[in-house]
């Protein structure tokens, strides 16, 4: 198992910075970048991406604001290197809401634990990763990802699972809006609340919310797949255009949901309204009496 601590990388940056101060003059941006690149290679065996260097050069006049994208790039490169070396367990400490963590990384059954909050577009375009976020997730978690699993212990911001092609998501809290927009496959289980426009243009897959507040226009213009939400939260604005509520959940719905939950039930217990839900969700009655199904019209 390898552990990547962003604070440790920051300390390397800080040391470089203090060396600058010791010399009594301010180093140029190019010199600082060059030093960071050398430090990334000597400490972690990686070099910064040319695209990130160009982005930072064009957008930042000094080194301090360029550090978050550089940090994210070093972490991602370090993870790619570890996966190439057949590492299966990776831990990221103190992510501090960094954007683009795990973006574009492929790793079949590689387990990644993020100990803190993940920033925007975490895991976008990734494939096969088994990610657990022990905090909150920013916008567009796992967007355009191909497969894998994302577990979020807190809430997730909008756009979770956008245009994914077969990734599974499990959120212990709520998602804020536009969950599973244009999803092409995969499943998303949200324990405690679903934001507005979730399931917009959904093409396939299963989106389930067990409890909590449900936003408006769920499943708007979806063409395939199915969405399950708690029936008690449904009002005249809940169901979007071009979709309808199925009359009653059938035995096959129960089978589908049971299979979805069994995938995650072994992960950890989860709670609904402060009640330990690990027993409740296995009950057939819970699904059949509490959830309703949204499907495309004909």
């Amino acid at each position: 198992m390898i552990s990547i601590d962003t604070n440790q990388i920051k300390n390397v940056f800080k040391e470089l910075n203090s060396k600058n101060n010791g010399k009594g003059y301010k180093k140029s941006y190019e010199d600082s970048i060059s030093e960071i690149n050398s430090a990334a290679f000597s400490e972690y065996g990686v070099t910064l991406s040319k695209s990130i260097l160009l982005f930072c050069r064009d957008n930042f006049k000094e080194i301090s604001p360029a550090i978050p994208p550089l940090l994210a790039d070093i972490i991602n490169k370090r993870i790619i290197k570890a996966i190439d070396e057949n590492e299966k367990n990776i831990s990221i400490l103190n992510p501090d809401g960094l954007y683009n963590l795990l973006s574009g990384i492929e790793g079949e059954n590689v387990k990644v634990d993020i100990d803190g909050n993940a920033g925007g577009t975490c895991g976008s375009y990734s494939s096969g990763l088994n990610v657990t976020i022990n905090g909150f997730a920013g916008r567009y978690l796992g967007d355009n990802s191909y497969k894998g699993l994302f577990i979020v212990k807190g809430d997730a911001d909008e756009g979770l699972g956008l245009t994914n092609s077969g990734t599974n998501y499990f959120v212990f809290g709520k998602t804020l809006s536009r969950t599973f927009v244009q999803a092409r496959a995969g499943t998303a289980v949200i324990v405690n609340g679903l934001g507005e426009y979730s399931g917009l243009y959904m093409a396939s897959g299963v989106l389930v919310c067990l409890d909590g507040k449900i936003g408006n226009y769920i499943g708007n213009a979806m063409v395939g797949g199915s969405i399950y939400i708690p029936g008690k939260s449904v009002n005249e604005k809940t169901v979007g255009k071009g979709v309808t509520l199925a009359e009653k959940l059938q035995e096959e719905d129960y089978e589908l949901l049971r299979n979805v939950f069994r995938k995650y039930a072994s992960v950890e217990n989860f709670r609904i309204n402060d009640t330990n839900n690990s027993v409740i969700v296995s009950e057939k009655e819970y699904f059949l009496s509490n959830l309703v199904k949204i499907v495309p019209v004909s």
Partner: protein
Amino acid sequence: MCGICGIILDTTKEEIKEFDIGSLLVRMAYSQQVRGQDSFGMGIYNKPKENKINEDNYKVNVAVHSDFEFEVSNLFRNNINESPITYRLDSLFSTNSMLSCYEFDISNKSEPIMQELLRLKSEYDENFWIMSHGKYLTIVKDIGIVKNLANKWFDVDEKLNDLEFEKIPKSSYLTWNKIRYGTHGIAHVRIATNTEVEARNAHPICSLNLADISVVHNGEITNADNLRRELKLKGYDFTTTTDSEVIVAFIANRLIKNKDKTYSLKDACREFIESASGFYTGIVSTPNEVAFFSDILKTRPAVYGYHDKDEEFPAFYAIATDISALDSVNATKNIDTINSGEVKIFNVGLDYKIKKIQSDL
């Protein structure tokens, strides 16, 4: 891709009192630094001091080029009998810009002096501008990143130690430390998109025509030029070239126009969302309310959460662009988002009456 945030005391559970808004806003802005690196600013609303609560207490915060400092000081000296400069934020601006910032107490003389300041503004153009004015509001803003500016502005004490700011000994801390306490405040980290990186273009932006109102904004208002032209024809003044100033001028216009009717900040924000095209979220603050709104398509993130009272801070609401900013101030209870076209109002309850600066508006 700017980052906006705000802190609002929960007056349903707490009596109206001041607390260390400054350190909370710095913490939130710092966690959103990745969203904007050009400039940083904060607007904090303080209660007037007890001995001034019944007076026409009025303060104005101006930025002036060193060449014109003398004339501006004279203006105040000629108009007020007392010593005009209450305190000076002399480390506010970078030395390159050669600007200084003063806060003046113009109690009982606010209307004629504001008229004079607006005249000076049009005369001196970019060498003189008004940063904030009113009974409650103080805005500080500058070019730079959160870490450097927080170091410049105030004593980075134990509350911010974990952010690893450098501690620089400076006597001017004391001046800023006085205004870091308040009932609510808003902050902004900016990345310039279509206007220059200048201190006056940083947010929060106040209205020149209505006291104590300020705005921070993330996104683009595509018909800002049209709205600006309409408002200019109605007599509204602008300091910056940003589209964000249109928001505050528009809302000031609606509040002034409808001040005798049952018309709220929420109505004004709704009217703005109907009139403004583009993709944006914004926070508009007055002494008694804070409005958080999104465009009708909700293409920019906007989240809010709640912090329960603890030993250090009273109960407050936190609003932000990134969800991790809420976590940075431990306001993770009942996290929710602003829906498309929604205006969420947070009440503060300070006494506030709409008072226009110029009689011809």
